[in-house]
């Protein structure tokens, strides 16, 4: 009987090899997907590596349908191989498409078990096709999902924008206490190379059309505590009546959100390293250092206040203040639509900056 058990248990585990095998030559491993369209018609671009006689090239298939599912079916019918999204790395969504209920485009990706939900999502400006077929000298380098993945890693590592994968995007879209913010990329007209344009703000399920600048996006990652390993900010400080540029790198970031009635305060305690400054006027001793800290703290505070103003204008709580309100301040939460409440709230930031080190011994 034990022998029978030994045979049957592994047999059950190996079942998928009999009927559910997918032979590599019969499948197209889709690594990039782009979606454009509206609630009536969807156009989907699939990018996948294709081996030619001498090299590996990226091929694309364009498909149309009333829904994403229909477009995918159309693509499958026209392709000689089965499109397999289990290796998808990037999902592009055009800015125009994102103005519609975004989840409707993503539902199929999100819920079908075989699909990969850790693919990154980005918004694109201009023609979607351009991101799949980049011309010029960069084409070989850029025309692959891995190159885009590297680009995304850079965005994240240097805290240039908030970065989310498909799973996180869907979770935030359904979270009433926080709004989504995604990187927006564009093709640089001169170089033909994709670059970060800013951070797009969502309100509920739809893209507002409002985009934060790269500097604002950087501050947003700091406010959300989602910064990458490097976050650098550049400011101009006044030292002895002289304007001096200074580059700061974030070392530590602690924040506390206080909510009192319809007033919210964001207390930010940040520790930075003054990474680069002109030798001479900036660093003249402890007193000078303290003055610099105050000055820089105020400058960052002003920038954060401006950023919050932009978020409120767009009615997009990309910071996630709503999560705290929902948890601890039910009276405010139940007042009505959170996006409207957020837009009307009085939110002040206060920054306490500590310059812990100078990055240079002397």
């Amino acid at each position: 009987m034990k022998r029978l058990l030994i045979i049957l248990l592994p047999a059950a585990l190996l079942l998928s090899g009999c009927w559910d095998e997918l032979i590599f030559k019969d499948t197209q491993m889709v690594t990039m997907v782009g979606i454009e369209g509206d609630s009536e018609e969807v156009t989907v671009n699939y990018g996948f590596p294709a081996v030619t006689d001498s090299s590996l090239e990226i091929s694309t298939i364009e498909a149309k349908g009333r829904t994403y599912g229909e477009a995918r079916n159309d693509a499958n019918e026209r392709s000689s191989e089965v499109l397999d999204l289990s290796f998808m790395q990037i999902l592009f969504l055009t800015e125009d498409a994102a103005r519609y209920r975004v989840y409707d485009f993503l539902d199929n990706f999100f819920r079908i078990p075989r699909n990969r939900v850790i693919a990154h999502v980005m918004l694109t400006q201009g023609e979607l096709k351009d991101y799949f077929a980049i011309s010029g000298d960069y084409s070989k380098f850029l025309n692959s999902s891995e190159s885009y993945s590297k680009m995304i890693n850079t965005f994240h590592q240097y805290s240039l924008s908030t970065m989310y994968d498909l799973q996180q995007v869907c979770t935030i879209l359904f979270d009433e206490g926080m709004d989504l913010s995604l990187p927006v990329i564009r093709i640089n007209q001169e170089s033909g190379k994709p670059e970060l344009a800013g951070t797009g703000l969502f309100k509920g399920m739809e893209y507002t059309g409002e985009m934060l600048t790269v500097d604002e996006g950087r501050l947003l990652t700091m406010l959300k505590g989602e910064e990458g390993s490097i976050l650098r900010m550049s400011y101009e400080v006044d030292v002895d009546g002289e304007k001096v540029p200074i580059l700061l790198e974030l070392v530590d970031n602690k924040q506390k959100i206080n909510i009192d009635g319809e007033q919210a305060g964001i207390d930010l305690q940040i520790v930075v390293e003054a990474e680069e400054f002109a030798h001479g006027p900036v660093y003249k001793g402890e007193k000078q250092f303290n003055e610099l800290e105050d000055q820089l703290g105020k400058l960052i505070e002003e920038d954060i206040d401006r950023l919050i103003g932009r978020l409120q204008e767009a009615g997009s709580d990309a910071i996630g203040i709503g999560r705290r309100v929902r948890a601890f301040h039910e009276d405010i939460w139940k007042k009505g639509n959170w996006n409207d409440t957020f837009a009307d709230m009085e939110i002040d930031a206060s920054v306490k900056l500590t310059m812990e080190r100078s990055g240079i011994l002397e």
Partner: protein
Amino acid sequence: MGTRITQLQMFLMLFIAQTGTVFISFQSPLIQIAGTESWFVFFCLGLLFLPHIWLFERFFQYFVWSKPICIMYAGYWFFICVSFTGKNVYTLNVWAFPETPVLLVIVLMGSVMLAVVLSKPSTAVNLGVILIPLIVIFILFVSMAVNDLIWTNLLPVGQLSLGEFRKAVQPAQLPFVGIELYLLFRLMQPEKVGFRRLFLYFAIWFAFFLYMLIFPLAYFSLKEFELFPDPIIYLLRSQEVTFVERLDLFFIYIWLAWSIVTISLYAFAVIRLLGLMGILYYKKIAVWMTVLFIIATYFVVNKNAVQFNAKVIPYIHGIFGVALPAAVIVFNKIKGRTNAGKGISS
């Protein structure tokens, strides 16, 4: 000759039987009703597990396994086996083996179950041991999501109305399913079970299910629970690890093994009941039971049946886990009848 098991074996069997299939699916229906408060509902209800099992320990001798009681429990556990396997095969079919014929999967699971019940009792008693490392690995996998948890998802608490709370209690009962097996397993265990041991088992059971509830609740948005019935698999799917591309598929195999052992334990319990009814030559019955199991399961591997079973199981559990044991124990206590001298043939 009676089958004797140690306390450790008894609690291991009980834990495997109680976790089995429900740990991946009890969260969604509960969270859909109780929202952020679902952990609190389960916390309150879960505390009742200790007095529940303590009462079983205190009065198990008065739960006399008469023939009608044996038949009723055999039917109930057979239903549990069928509905759990139906849910399991349905999930496997959607998630991992879409092209594999469901009948084949059921036959293989039924074959393992049959092999276990036809083996010596020690096979079923010790089968759970192989799951211990797998359960530890599984908990580690789930724990990898800790950095993505949103703790504010667990608040506010204390806003549910009595009606909502009562509604939420139904799915929150699912982890209790199988507790009545204690009444049977306890007969195979001759020593008195101290309160400390009972508390330890309760603590492990409670911590396990609370963990399985809090992680998905703090990981996903509340509205996402309307989109999928098994949040644990979705949670594992979204974990990026270097050693395997899809953690969820890895988990599916752990879950498959876990489920097979679970149904084998329930089948083992049914066979023990045959012994209590004085049926010593049970092998033929076991084969027919497996055939019936395969046929019955085949007809419940669909979405409607899975959803229906998930809805009715808490009610049936209320009868077999609470009401019937209470009635039988009270009745026999008054009559002064006990299980004394009842042996379970091996």
